[in-house]
């Protein structure tokens, strides 16, 4: 029988340490609605998503109330639209019509984001991929809830440098088209290397073609819970530190697993995976950087940060895999800047630089995330940042991503405001030296030697 102490511990986590289920994301395959007529396609996309996700928000809220745990976001991911629109779309504007349909259906079912306005171009780019990518800036400017992502490389295929170069320009264009809102468009656009098919977190969620028709994926959270647990073992050995993180991650993940199973049962949709990521929010006490500080760093970014993050990421996984049979998505620690008060403080104090963040992405679950950079950064420089990050992912056989926001009209020291869960961010310094001639080369970087395992 459950005792007083255990009940109090759980409720303390929820009330004081920001434990929540960050997202229930319903993945919906659109492969069966493909049509060569754009009007029909849009209608069928709307109908399929609406029918599948009609009860998603209400069910999520009910589960949250019954278990007494907040389920912060209800979201949808769909099959990459470059595939779905390939037969119907003759130009970039046609794709924008699909973006509007996605936005409308997201609004009508009440989810706050819909992901999958995506192209998978790890090795090569089809005409449809290119049209979709070119439509991204406009699509993000005219919609509220649509999120876009592009997979630019993988360990198996190498890096598509033509698309890396193009994405440098696209990100700048997306920033320009949303300049009245601090270039918010870029906050809804992420590029990947080794993008997972079952990621429930935005902006990078899409429903991979290897997935079933509809599926429920759940992303848990709880940096505050880990931090509080660690505050009780200050000064103890690494063994105790690791053990504490592992146990906490286990507890957090079990809640995710429970909610995922329950949502899957009630919606009559198969359960896919639980994503173990520690996802911070701008709320005080909900920060991954604070965990690093609790481990003994003055600020995130101080020497030792990469080691601390590696340890954290690994222990979160070790605790989490025991708690759920199906773990997937990104699973690790997220280190976004604007969505994490501790990271913002570290940048403001001068402790955390772009280069250190890049090193951190070698050992955490994603990449350069929600980083505001000066609006006058060159497209080739952004492409260079992307290429570096893709290379880290390709060589280390892990997912890496870039979500940088070149905030139009702002300079180092200014602050960009995105609002809500996206937070705010100080503009960070970018290395001013040129990589123009490197980025201008055409073609792709071949797959690394260790990809040949057959």
């Amino acid at each position, binding site marked *: *029988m*459950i005792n*007083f102490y*255990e*009940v*109090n*511990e*759980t*409720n303390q986590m929820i009330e004081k340490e920001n434990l929540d289920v960050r997202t229930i994301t319903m993945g919906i395959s659109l492969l069966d609605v493909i049509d060569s007529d754009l009007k029909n396609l849009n209608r069928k996309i709307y109908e399929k998503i609406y029918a599948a996700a009609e009860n998603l928000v209400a069910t999520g809220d*009910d589960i949250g*109330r*019954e*278990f*007494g*745990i907040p389920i912060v976001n209800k979201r949808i991911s769909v099959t990459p639209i470059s595939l779905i629109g390939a037969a119907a779309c003759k130009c970039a504007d046609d794709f924008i019509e699909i973006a509007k349909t996605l936005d409308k259906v997201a609004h009508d079912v009440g989810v706050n984001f819909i992901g999958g306005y995506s192209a998978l171009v790890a090795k090569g780019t089809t005409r449809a991929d290119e049209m979709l990518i070119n439509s991204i800036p406009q699509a993000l400017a005219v919609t509220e809830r649509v999120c876009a992502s592009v997979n630019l490389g993988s360990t198996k295929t190498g890096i598509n440098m033509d698309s890396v170069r193009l994405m440098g320009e696209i990100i700048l264009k997306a920033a320009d088209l949303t300049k009245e809102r601090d270039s918010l468009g870029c906050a809804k656009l992420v590029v990947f290397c080794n993008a997972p098919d079952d990621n429930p977190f935005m902006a990078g969620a899409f429903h991979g073609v290897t997935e079933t028709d509809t599926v429920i994926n759940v992303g848990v959270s709880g940096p505050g819970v880990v931090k509080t647990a660690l505050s009780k073992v200050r000064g103890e050995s690494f063994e105790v530190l690791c053990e504490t993180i592992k146990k906490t991650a286990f*507890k957090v993940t*079990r*809640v995710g*697993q*429970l909610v995922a199973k329950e949502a899957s049962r009630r919606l009559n949709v198969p359960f896919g995976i639980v994503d173990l990521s520690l996802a911070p929010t701008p709320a005080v006490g909900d920060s991954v950087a604070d965990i690093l500080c609790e481990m003994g760093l003055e600020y995130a970014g101080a020497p030792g940060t990469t080691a601390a993050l590696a340890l954290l990421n690994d222990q979160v996984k070790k605790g989490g895999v*025991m708690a759920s049979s199906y773990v997937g998505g990104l699973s690790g620690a997220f280190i976004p800047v604007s969505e994490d008060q501790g990271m913002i403080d570290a940048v403001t104090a001068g402790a955390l630089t772009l280069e250190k963040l890049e090193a951190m992405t070698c050992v955490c679950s994603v990449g350069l995330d929600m980083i505001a950079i000066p609006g006058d950064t060159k497209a080739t420089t952004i492409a260079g940042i992307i290429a570096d990050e893709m290379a880290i992912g390709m060589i280390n056989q892990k997912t890496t991503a870039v979500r940088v926001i070149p905030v139009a009209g702002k300079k180092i020291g200014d602050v960009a405001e995105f609002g809500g869960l996206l937070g705010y961010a100080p503009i960070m310094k970018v290395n001013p030296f040129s990589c123009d001639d490197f980025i201008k080369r055409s073609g792709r970087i071949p797959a690394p030697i260790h990809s040949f395992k057959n």
Partner: protein
Amino acid sequence: MNKTIITVVGKDTVGIIAGVCSYLAENQINIEDISQTIVNGYFNMMMVADMNKCPKQHAQIAEELEDLGQKIGVIIKAQREEIFDNMHRV
């Protein structure tokens, strides 16, 4: 099966248990276990309840208990037992 954990936390006052228990009785909810302490004037109670005969949905009970808590001046939560079981039992 289908057990509910009801927790009541707040400043101690007359009639907290009476208020909660009469509400539960009115709604056919059976109390199987109660533990309760008062620390520094703060009331702390946990009940294990069986809602199988209750005609209302769980979410509605949780909301009504929350409202009742506001009237008495305490925080009342009704949560399905699974969340605690899952978190604390391997």
